[in-house]
């Protein structure tokens, strides 16, 4: 599967953040997006995942332009997105947050328990997002996006606010997945910057 970004432009208050950007990534490639804070990394990831509409340009999956109405399903089945901000549903437990996302399009065969164990958050499955630490929160978000088992993973600073051990857990998993999924990461973490990269 191939994800293509073609001639994307985005401006905020007449200031161009992204200008005529194009690139493509296969579902077994690893792409890093690096740059200073405020340079537009998150904006680009938001556009790639359909969370933000570009001023111009298109996103294609396997040469087919993604229509506006298809983005919801694509975020659950094709492009899993880990945003930088809080993204867990407060009223649900950690386990339910992960499960309900996976169940949305009937993907219930993913082994959530093993994943939670690997990320060392298997002891907080019954807790609500407000009851856990920021590091656990980040790992729970990561677990949720992995549970979707999508072809591409788009991750916005997945190791920020994490101690080195927790960050190491995420890096290990990403290393294992790098040949099986297309991974796009916006990060400042040198341990994650490898292979192909785009400098903004």
């Amino acid at each position, binding site marked *: 599967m191939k994800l293509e970004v073609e001639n994307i432009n985005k401006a905020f208050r007449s200031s161009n953040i992204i200008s005529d950007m194009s690139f493509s990534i296969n579902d077994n490639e690893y792409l890093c997006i690096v740059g200073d804070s405020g340079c537009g990394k*998150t904006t680009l990831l*938001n556009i790639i995942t*359909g*969370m*933000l*509409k570009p001023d111009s340009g298109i996103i294609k999956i396997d040469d087919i332009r993604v229509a506006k109405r298809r983005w*919801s*399903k*694509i*975020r*659950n*089945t094709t492009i899993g*997105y880990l*945003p*930088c*901000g*809080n*993204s*867990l*549903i*407060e*009223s*649900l437990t950690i386990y*339910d947050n992960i499960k*309900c*996302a996976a169940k*949305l*399009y009937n993907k219930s065969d993913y082994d959530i328990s093993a994943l939670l164990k690997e990320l060392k958050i298997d002891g907080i499955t019954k807790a*609500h997002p407000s009851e856990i630490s920021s590091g656990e929160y980040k790992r729970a978000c990561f677990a*949720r*996006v992995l549970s*979707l088992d999508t072809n591409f993973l788009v991750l916005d600073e997945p190791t920020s606010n994490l101690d080195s051990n927790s960050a190491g857990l995420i890096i290990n998993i990403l290393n294992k997945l790098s040949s099986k999924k297309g991974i796009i990461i916006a990060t400042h973490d040198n341990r994650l910057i490898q292979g192909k990269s785009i400098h903004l």
Partner: protein
Amino acid sequence: MKIIFANIKYQKFRYTMIFMIIFTMTLCIFSSNMLITSMTQGIATAKNRLGADITIIPKGDDSVTEETLFDGQPSTLKMDSDWLGKIKKMPYITDITSRLYIASLSGQSCCDSSVQLIATNIAEDFLLKSWITDDISELASKEIIVGSSFNAKIGDTLKYYNIDFTVKGVLEKTNTGYDKSAFISYEAADEIMQNPKYNQYFKRNENGYNTISMIFINSSNPEATRDVIRSKYYYDDIEIYSTNAKLSDYTMSVDSSKIFTYALNILILIISALSLITINTLATSNRKNEVGSMLNVGFSKFYIAMIFMFESLLISIMASLSAVITFEILFTLFNTWIGEIFVSPMINPSINDIMATTKLLLILSTLLTVMSMVIAFAHIYKKSPSELIKEAS
């Protein structure tokens, strides 16, 4: 469904507020509608069943008559029975009957209060005929016919003025004072009046006890009959009035209450709608992160809107039904007291009325909830998912 219940549980305060608004609104509108509907129907029933074109009562006692007929308040109305013979001679009269109203000194079979004993001649009493389900053409001196509120069946024995009466018949439910009345023969009334213990309450002339309370008349020309009686006996101690005219006063009073009630209901509705819109708009605005989070993992905006909608609808339906149940409980417990406040015994909503009003209020609260949620969700519907997460973070 799991998300819906989890959200409701998590947002207790918000949903308690929505519950209270819908509950209060439903209770107010439901109660007022039930009271007005049942009063209107009670009047219609009374109109149909009273039947008499003209009623003649002792002068100055019309308020007592009103209480006796409509409120079921026991009373003892007195006038000479000679009046029956005089009135019979008036023109156009087709039916005529008299009754003697005696307030029992102690109620032993119905309710906690005293009951209305009515002496009548069953064979002549054209008003009573439509209420009696059994074929009863005469009443012996120790027999009694009771209203539907009595806890008695045919064959039971009831004691009034120290006399044991055998129940010969039970009237249909009339929703008037007759439900709490018992009918006896004039012979039984005479026996009561002759008892030295009680005869101080009754009038005796040279021919013995000759007391009656009211004369009911049906006429082929009620206005003419009334005018003749009025002109002939203008200076005498009797009052003549049309039963329907008297009921019209009640109808007018209920009609004015209706206007006031409907205006109040509209005001309650507007206040509830504004409160719901405000709460739902604020609540939905505070849920931007939740919306953004759900969009992030693949929920569509429509799906999320439906989840929010069902949360509110569930609360709304629960609140509406709770209000109806609360009304029913309060109404059952305080029926008599409510009747006294509204100076009417005609408050007896039927199952059909309750069901119809409940259905109407469910539709109303559902519409209000849907409208408030649509307005609330419109605020965030146009925002991009990234904006929603960003604004809340």
